């Protein structure tokens, strides 16, 4: 009698725990699905048709880029083409699916595009940052500030003879030229995807039941340092600072392994390079001490932590388990002034991870592309058999 009642008690306890766990997981996905449906409900039938693709639409799945939307048109609907309630619903959806840190990063990348629209490259004819508070106030949820008469001068030539008309006007840059699209319909059980991206941004988020997968995701910025209302903003500043700190924590022998003797001109596994696992190089994490490992995880979290906490913590657990098989490689200068962006390339690579940070040649400290991948699980294929 006693034994059977004990077994019964254990069973009940397990049941309660299982319910609680699934409750936590469901609540996160529930919220995302709820926010997604709320957004979709604000759209007209015509808009909805433009926004929702079939879940197995491979073409749409890989339609993302670091380039401005004028060069590589994104599908879906841009914030610019939304009404104010639609934009609010879209931003509310992002706030649910992303962590506060992730949302801030996304918004800062968009703000950088606003700055670029106004000021262009710092080396351009109208070089130099906008004087003091000269930058107009930008509300990430609101429409962009009016540019001073169309595109920055360095893009003026684009509309000239021989150029293509689609680059005319002010439609190349700005925080409102970010597009949202769906693959499949939001569901708590059946896998579906949310895409949000534009210039220097491509979020590809797969929601499969309680799991959320952020790979592949591209972040980038130009300018990578700018002033807004007197505040210095570096959308990818921590990616630079944390990597530099990690590099500087290495001893001489570790550094010799980590620092590659050749230049890496760009992302190796950028857009279009899905599912590729390259032979790793650099310093293997098994040769790092506990402090350095912790620093590396902190660095990885700058990408893995863009998605909401529920999904990010599962991902970090996976990456922590891979740590001994993870590599850190660096190419370029190794000393920088604190608070400035590095001009070196680096890569973090593990069995389920590729992170690349690639300064671009035109303005290495101020123009950055990064990629975040799981070559075994791009677009959450593991969970969806797609």
């Amino acid at each position: 009698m006693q034994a059977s009642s004990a077994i019964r008690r254990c069973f009940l306890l397990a049941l309660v725990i299982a319910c609680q766990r699934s409750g936590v997981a469901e609540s996160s996905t529930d919220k995302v699905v709820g926010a997604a449906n709320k957004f979709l409900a604000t759209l007209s039938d015509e808009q909805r048709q433009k926004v929702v693709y079939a879940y197995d639409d491979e073409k749409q799945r890989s339609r993302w880029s670091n380039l401005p939307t004028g060069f590589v048109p994104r599908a879906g609907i841009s914030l610019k083409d939304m009404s104010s309630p639609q934009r609010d619903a879209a931003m509310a959806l992002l706030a649910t699916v992303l962590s506060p840190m992730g949302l801030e990063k996304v918004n800062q990348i968009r703000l950088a595009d606003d700055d670029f629209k106004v000021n262009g490259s710092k080396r351009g004819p109208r070089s130099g940052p906008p004087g003091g508070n000269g930058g107009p106030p930008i509300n990430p949820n609101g429409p962009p500030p009016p540019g001073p008469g169309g595109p920055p001068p360095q893009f003026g030539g684009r509309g000239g003879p021989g150029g293509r008309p689609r680059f005319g006007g002010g439609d190349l840059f700005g925080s409102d030229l970010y597009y949202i699209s769906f693959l499949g319909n939001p569901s708590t059980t059946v896998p579906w995807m949310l895409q949000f991206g534009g210039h220097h941004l491509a979020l590809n988020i797969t929601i499969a039941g309680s799991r959320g997968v952020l790979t592949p995701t591209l972040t980038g910025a130009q300018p990578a340092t700018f002033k807004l209302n007197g505040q210095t903003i570096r959308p990818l500043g921590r990616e630079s600072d944390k990597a530099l700190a990690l590099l500087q924590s290495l001893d001489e022998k570790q550094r010799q392994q980590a620092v590659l003797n050749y230049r890496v001109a760009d992302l190796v596994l950028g857009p279009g390079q899905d599912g590729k696992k390259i032979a790793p190089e650099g310093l293997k994490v098994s040769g790092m001490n506990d402090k350095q490992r912790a620093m590396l995880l902190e660095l990885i979290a700058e990408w893995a932590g863009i998605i909401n906490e529920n999904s990010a913590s599962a991902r970090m657990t996976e990456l922590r388990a891979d740590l001994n098989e993870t590599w850190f490689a660096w190419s370029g200068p190794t000393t920088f002034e604190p608070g400035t962006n590095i001009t070196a390339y680096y890569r973090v690579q593990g069995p389920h991870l590729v992170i690349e940070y690639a300064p671009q040649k035109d303005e290495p400290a101020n123009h950055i592309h990064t990629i975040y991948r799981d070559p075994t699980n791009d677009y959450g294929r593991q969970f969806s058999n797609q």
Partner: protein
Amino acid sequence: MKAKLAILIATLSLGVPSFAHRLDEYLQAMIVSIEQSQIHVSMRLIPGVAVSSAVIAAVDTNGDGILSYTEQQTYAQEVLRDLSLSLDGHALQPHLRTVNFPAPADMKEGTGEIHIEFDADLPTEGPQRTLVVENHHQPRMSVYLVNALAPQDRNLRVTSQNRNQNQSYYRLEYAQASPQQDSFLLRWRSRCVTALAPFTGVPSMFRLGMRHIVEGTDHLLFLIALLLPAPLLAKRSRWGAAGSIRRSLVQIVRVVSAFTIGHSATLALGASGLVSLPSRVVEVLIAFSILVSAVHALRPLFPGREPAVAAGFGLVHGLAFATTLQNLGVGTWQRVASILGFNLGIETMQLIVVAAILPSLIILSRTPAYTAFRLGGALFAGFASLGWIIERLFNVPYLVDGLVDRIAQRGVWIAISLIVISICLWLRPTLFLSDQKMIHE
């Protein structure tokens, strides 16, 4: 220099000092995938805005603004000619597989990617391989990337990668374990199998050893007869009362161990052919050893020296074991392994038998019934041994063998009833006492 100047002029004339995308470089990114007998390379060529006209001009040789199929193929072949591929110093011949061109307009914007895929066959031999890939296509305006995919084939393992500063030179070293040559693990497995091959017969030899004891009742009878007086203390020329349990146990262990040492020695010597006696002599000697221990169980012949006697007769018994083992095994290791397995089987069975009768001996030796038991056992062993001696000496069929065998076949039941009887006898005084008590009350 000319190209650089052209780029500079183009840049200035366009008034484009900076762009959101590639400007004055021709990015050539290669991803090499290695297999056992071939490499597959995919190339992406992305001309920046400022160099795109130069690239387009190189493709569009007739200048009609259209990149025809022939022009595309010709350009791709040109790219392959500018590559240099070698494996272990031998030049490799690339075979163009696919070519894909973007619209010239996209190239002008710096967003178009030319895709070229090609294969090269590799010579198959060689466990350590060095692949060198050099890219000399448009060196003045180009930046290069080259990487290898982590090999899918588990027999291939990248051991090192080296590049020059701009990645136009790439050296990939990798280890190739061909399936025929076995991987590291397989090699070790086969080594272990070879090393353990002589021991594959050990389990069967072990079983043979055990069976030999069960069926070889003469060995058992010798041992049991020798153990019969073991718990007792010799008092002048008679067996007296039982010694302490500790002493009894020690005595039994010493006798059994001595017997083991003795027969193991001659088993090894006999099985390796170093010592041999005619089997009939051995058989008679064994029967004689039983007679000796039977007499000793009646009257102490060599009190305190049982272990020595056990070891001495053990030598004889070992020779008998060895005859079973002759003609077994070919290699030395195989013989050693066989002897080891056989002997382990003997010891195991012997220990089982001793463990089965030991409690009975110790318990019974503390009851008055033990004298009768000892005498009975000794007489049985004595007559059996006499029978065996006659049987073996004169080679005449006799009853003893069959009789003893039939008893031995019921060994388990005998051992169990022995324990039950000894416990009952041991408890009898207590039972008797309590009966009396009950009557009194």
